[in-house]
């Protein structure tokens, strides 16, 4: 039981830290609420889509900024606009803020500033990606473990007492952390 608790705690702590550090904001919490039995992996799927999108846009911007003939700042602005929209939708706060900063430089057509911003943006994106992937791993693991535990203790009624109270507490913890409980009745 201990390790399940630990895993749960790890998940809760980790996801709190993401919020504290500003890596994700309330919008992310909203997304988590959208997970249910019809779409149990919604957040992961949206996040994956976002990662793809983000990488592509960052790439495009990098290429645009490298153009010797002249930087197409309009294209860059469009990319930033897209990225800002996406990151805001999924709650990637720091990425969004990086976009906002980026926009002012691109509006001023400041190539050096843009390069710096792009770097910052890349950095924030990598950070986000790492953190979210870790979070997903822990979340999946703890979900698996939780279900496993429930199934196991239902099957082994004569095993060590594993009162439903404990199970209920686990469920509360998971929900409090923003996770969802697979329906095991």
């Amino acid at each position, binding site marked *: 039981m201990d390790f399940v608790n630990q895993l749960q705690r790890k998940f809760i702590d980790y996801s709190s830290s993401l919020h504290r550090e500003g890596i994700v904001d309330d919008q992310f919490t909203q997304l988590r609420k959208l997970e249910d*039995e019809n779409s149990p992996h919604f957040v992961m799927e949206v996040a994956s*889509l976002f990662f793809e999108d983000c990488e592509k846009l960052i790439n495009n911007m990098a290429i645009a900024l490298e153009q010797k003939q002249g930087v197409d700042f309009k294209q860059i602005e469009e990319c930033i606009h897209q990225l800002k929209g996406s990151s805001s939708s999924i709650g990637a706060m720091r990425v969004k803020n990086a976009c906002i900063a980026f926009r002012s430089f691109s509006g001023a057509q400041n190539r050096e500033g843009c390069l710096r911003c792009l770097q910052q943006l890349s950095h924030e994106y990598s950070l986000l990606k790492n953190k979210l992937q870790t979070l997903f791993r822990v979340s999946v693991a703890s979900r698996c473990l939780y279900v496993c535990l429930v199934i*196991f203790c239902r099957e082994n009624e004569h095993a060590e007492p594993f009162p439903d109270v404990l199970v209920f507490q686990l469920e509360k913890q998971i929900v409090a952390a923003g996770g969802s409980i697979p329906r095991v009745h």
Partner: protein
Amino acid sequence: MDKGLPAKREITFETELFGSKTFLIYVEPVFSKAGETIGINYMGMDITDQVRKRERMIKIREEIAVQKAKETELNRTIHITEETMRAKQMLATMSHEIRSPLSGVVSMAEILATTKLDREQRQLLDVMISSGDLVLQLINDILDLSKVESGVMKLEATKFRPREVVKHVLQTAAASLRKILTLEGNVADDVPIEVIGDVLRIRQILTNLISNAIKFTHEGKVGVKLYVVPEPPFAKEGSQNGSAGSTANQSTTNVPKEETCTSTSQTSSDQRGFHGKKHEGSCQDSSRSERGTPVTNGTIDVTEEQAELPETTVWIRCDVYDTGIGIPENALPTLFKKYMQVSADHARKYGGTGLGLAICKQLVELMGGRLTVSSQVHCGSTFTFILPYKVSLSCDRSDDADDDLSDMDDHGATDDDATAGFFQFQPRTLGSLFSSNGSSRTQNLLAHNIGYVNSHKINGFSENCYSFPTSNGQTKEMDLFEDACSVAEALEISPEPESSFSHSPDHDNESAICRDEHHHNVVNAENKVSTRDVSSCSETSREVDVKVKITEPQLPAERQGRSDSGFQSTLNSSREASNSISKPKILLVEDNKINVMVTRSMMKQLGHTIDVVSNGVEAVRAIQYHSYDLVLMDVCMPVMDGLQTTRLIRSFEETGNWDEAAKAGIEKPSPSSDSLQPDCTPPRRIPIIAMTANALSESADECSANGMDSFISKPVTFQKLKECLEQYFP
């Protein structure tokens, strides 16, 4: 003398009188004053004794050293033995501790395998499952072996039907067969319908031998043959040494009380012994007469001598044969040794722990039998074990299933099953077999997982090729259960099949409960659905349509109104055209895929499906051809932004024609197409909500100036959408 230096030496003389004597001779030169050597002084000392003492000392020291070495060695051995004992004990305890949670993990992994996974995940999961199974098997083997070795193994004596056991073992093996092999079982007619023995152990042995046979056979067949034989010679010997069985207690559970023969209460080793004058006459007579007439008909036709005896002993021989790779002669002697496999290559190629045969041998011998093997390389092998079984005469005639056969009951075993002697399992004819036998068991096994199984689509284990009719929703759920259960069950060819059976009586009640729980689930689902129904006045069927995503698109029509269908998880809810009639049609105009995904998901939670287009031109076209009740319009879009789009739409609504749009380059809808309202009535004004990235006042003014009714600032949240919908669809 030449060197001018003194010297001393030991010289040994052999004397006749005193044996060998050793003298120390010391010689020194004498020098004149001038330095010339003029002579020598020599001294001799008899040091014989000292030499002898010295030698003895050396010897003694040597001996002491040897002794010490021996002691250390012995101590170490004792240590090692002690530690081994402790380790074994700990291993047994730990294995038991490890086994329980590990089963949990493996079961869970199997269920996980039934969910939607991408290829990489599935591969990882497969590895997980096979590794887990392997470890479980290993642990079970270790536990069994240590139990048998430590002598704690108790033998049971229960009535069972050999034909059913054989059939069941073959069935289980066939279910998880991944190769094209034929499995057959042949039980001779003279084998009694019911015998008394330790059915669990026998099944364990059979399963082990069969799985070995399958493992090492790549084509052809694997089979079991069961027939009665006269009492084998080895049973007569070893009458005095009950070593193998002396530590085994025979707990007789179902033996009728009126036994007069004392032998039944003795250990199995005595049983096979022919003790001459030791026992009561009647007993002896029976066994002798038993031997005398080779029991061709060991069921009920007992001679008068045995009439008073409730039991007789029959020796049944079981051959497990295969057309596999065979075993080389030199490997035969070590075959049954622990941890031995035929070769290191074998171990690597075929896996396994090398414990199986050792366990089998121990068990067979414990029960008073013998396990032998004969084989030919590349042709096949046959493992044979002969065991004595008691046959209870009084019950043989009874056809009704006894309450003792708790582990056979849930088969719904018919008389045919009891007497059928020949079974064959061809590859790929498993579907029917399982559906008939599995249905009674499905609710018993994993009954409590119904809710969970329900929520996942079963798409794994295609290699087991079950084909179940999916004619209607109800059957489909049952099939889902059967799939999950039989698949989960088939994966356990563990030597402890009793787990699957011992559950059944307990869960008979649960099956009723779980059906109720299932309905409870359904009721919950319905409640959930209705509470989510915020703003739409839709019927339950439509809600179900939205809530319950079905995999096969052609089923929705059937599923309308069936709220107890299985929940499926798909995110491909991209149904551009809504099926229903009075649900508000909502159009989302947004180019950012992620925003689309999020918005759609939120709308789904609010109970709406939406159509999506990605720019203004497409939006206009959509409105030309369909009637929408609400439009969510992103402001910044490529090709045509939200403001211009709104202007065009408003112009149509005001003028009744699409001239403005045509000016902007969008063709008018063709008159024959299903465009909107008849021309006499002016087009209805559609509420258009702007979705703006910066909700500053300039944007708000611009939006309303262009004809938008309201705006939502991004990022789009659940609350915002909800309020918006409430406003326009109260």
